């Protein structure tokens, strides 16, 4: 066991946990869109279009908290270029180093998909882009992007697991898996919210998304249970006050269990639009609270 004297990084939750959440949601959404792009019939494009419109703007937010939390924000480019040698630097043992590079790749893919959809929807016209536009490269960057997206959603959990802080170390190797599942679930919720906002009726596609999300949320609950068993006494903080509300009530009850119950009920009885909206917002808020709780439980 590590002693208590392993120091706390004091990552600000309002930067780092928010980054975990935003990046995870963006990556989850992109992956779902890519799955439809890759495996669904060509006519069905509502979900993948929504995914592209969600993923890129969310990802645009990402550099802000990441750079703001650095002690020397002006030096953020050192993540890519070794400043004393002037050559690109990648440390395969450091999730933060690999994650920075993959963020670039993922950013590129989401940008391409975003532009692609804008052109297809005739929001912008971009002659050069349109001329070389065809299905194959679109599938290629959907594939590369969803692999990179998986990495982005999961590596943040691995990053916490490969530290010596007792709670983060004890929950190894499940944090990455949990963040990944949670990212896919919040991504699905973000897509659904976008569809509601744009008043797109995607019927069959949304039903598919819902059944996928139900499976995700059940596995999320299972993962949390196993993770807490692994954590044992290092998870003591989670039964003290801020966490009782934030983690148990917010992330687990309102963020996963209640929406899951609602999803099963609404399969049988059809609710109006408003409760749907509310339960997607609950999923998103729950995903954020989950990241904040698991980050802070290792730091306080």
């Amino acid at each position, binding site marked *: *066991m*590590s*002693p208590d*004297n*392993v*120091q*706390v*990084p*004091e990552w600000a939750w309002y930067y780092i946990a928010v980054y975990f959440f935003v990046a995870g949601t963006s990556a989850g959404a992109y*992956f*779902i869109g890519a*799955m*439809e792009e890759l*495996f*669904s*019939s060509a006519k069905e494009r509502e979900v993948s279009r929504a995914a592209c419109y969600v993923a890129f703007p969310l990802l645009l937010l990402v550099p802000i908290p990441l750079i703001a*939390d*650095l*002690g*020397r924000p002006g*030096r*953020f480019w*050192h*993540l890519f270029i*070794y*400043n*004393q040698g002037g050559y690109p*630097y990648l*440390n395969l*043992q*450091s*999730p*933060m*180093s690999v994650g*920075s590079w993959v963020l670039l790749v993922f950013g590129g893919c989401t940008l391409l998909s975003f532009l692609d959809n804008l052109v297809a929807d005739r929001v912008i016209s971009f002659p050069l882009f349109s001329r070389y536009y065809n299905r194959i490269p679109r599938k290629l960057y959907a594939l590369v992007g969803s692999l990179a997206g*998986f990495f982005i959603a*999961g*590596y943040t*959990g*691995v*990053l916490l*697991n*490969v*530290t*010596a*802080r007792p709670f*983060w*170390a004890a929950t*190894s*190797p499940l944090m*990455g*898996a949990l963040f*990944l*599942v949670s990212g896919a679930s919040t991504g699905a919720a973000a897509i659904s919210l976008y569809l509601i906002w744009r008043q797109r009726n995607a019927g*069959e596609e949304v039903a*598919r998304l819902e*059944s*996928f999300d139900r*499976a*995700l949320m059940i596995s999320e609950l299972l993962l949390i249970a196993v993770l807490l068993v692994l954590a044992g006494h290092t998870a003591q903080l989670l039964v003290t006050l801020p966490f009782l509300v934030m983690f148990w009530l917010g992330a687990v009850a309102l963020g996963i269990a209640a929406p899951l119950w609602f999803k099963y009920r609404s399969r049988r009885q059809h609710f109006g639009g408003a409760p749907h909206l509310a339960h997607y917002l609950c999923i998103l808020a729950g995903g954020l609270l989950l990241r904040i709780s698991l980050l802070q439980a290792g730091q306080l």
Partner: protein
Amino acid sequence: MAKGMFIDTTICTGCKSCQVACKQWNGLAAEPAHFGKRSGVPYPVADNFTGDSYDNTGSLSATDWRHVRFIEQIDEQRREKRWLFSSDSCKHCSDAGCLNACPTKAIVRTDLGNVVVQQETCIGCKFCIPSCPYGVISFSEETGTVHKCTLCNDRIHNGLGTACAKACPTGSIRFGEVPDLRRRADARLAQLKGKGEKAQIYGYEEADGLKVFYLFTDRPGVYGQPEQPVVPQRRLVLCSLVTILTALGIGVAALVNFRERLNGKEEHHES
């Protein structure tokens, strides 16, 4: 040849000259005053005391690269007592968690085996801080970067020993080449064991061998050191595998969903 230090805690007297020498050579900020003026109080008021024996810093920090720990052991009958001292610093691990974690190559190992932070490269991401199983490396709000003992990088590359070893009046801190130090440590251990004392070397196995290692007469935990330190990156492969498997699982779940629906749809079209 790898340089290091051997800390024989049994001959440490807790004089803290290593702490002072370290601060002076490395130009580290002094500790805040132990007494301060309080308005309306005619005499100086004591503050900034740890309340833990003679310990005046409590832990290692960005401006305390050495920390002398004072351990008062008194039995329940209050008859037997023992006062242990231990001068702690960065261990310059052979498999260093901080170095493994650094995403910018700010933390490097020199040709003499010591691990140093290059201040002009560090971006202050703080990932190295929880990656050190010994809680050594620390963040400074002042510089926005991390700091720790360098094993007196400038001195040892110019034929000198470390400042703390130079200042140590009892020879408790020895600087030298690691194999020589180990021979010395083994001899001292044999001597103590011959006298029937409980003693152990801490740092031969940990993190592939610590360049700065210790002779303890009690459990490492008593001296504030982890009993079984784990280099955190050794969990990386397993964590990555589990995460990749989960990703595959999600992929399959998505695929099954799509397939089901697609098949359903095709049947619907056919009918």
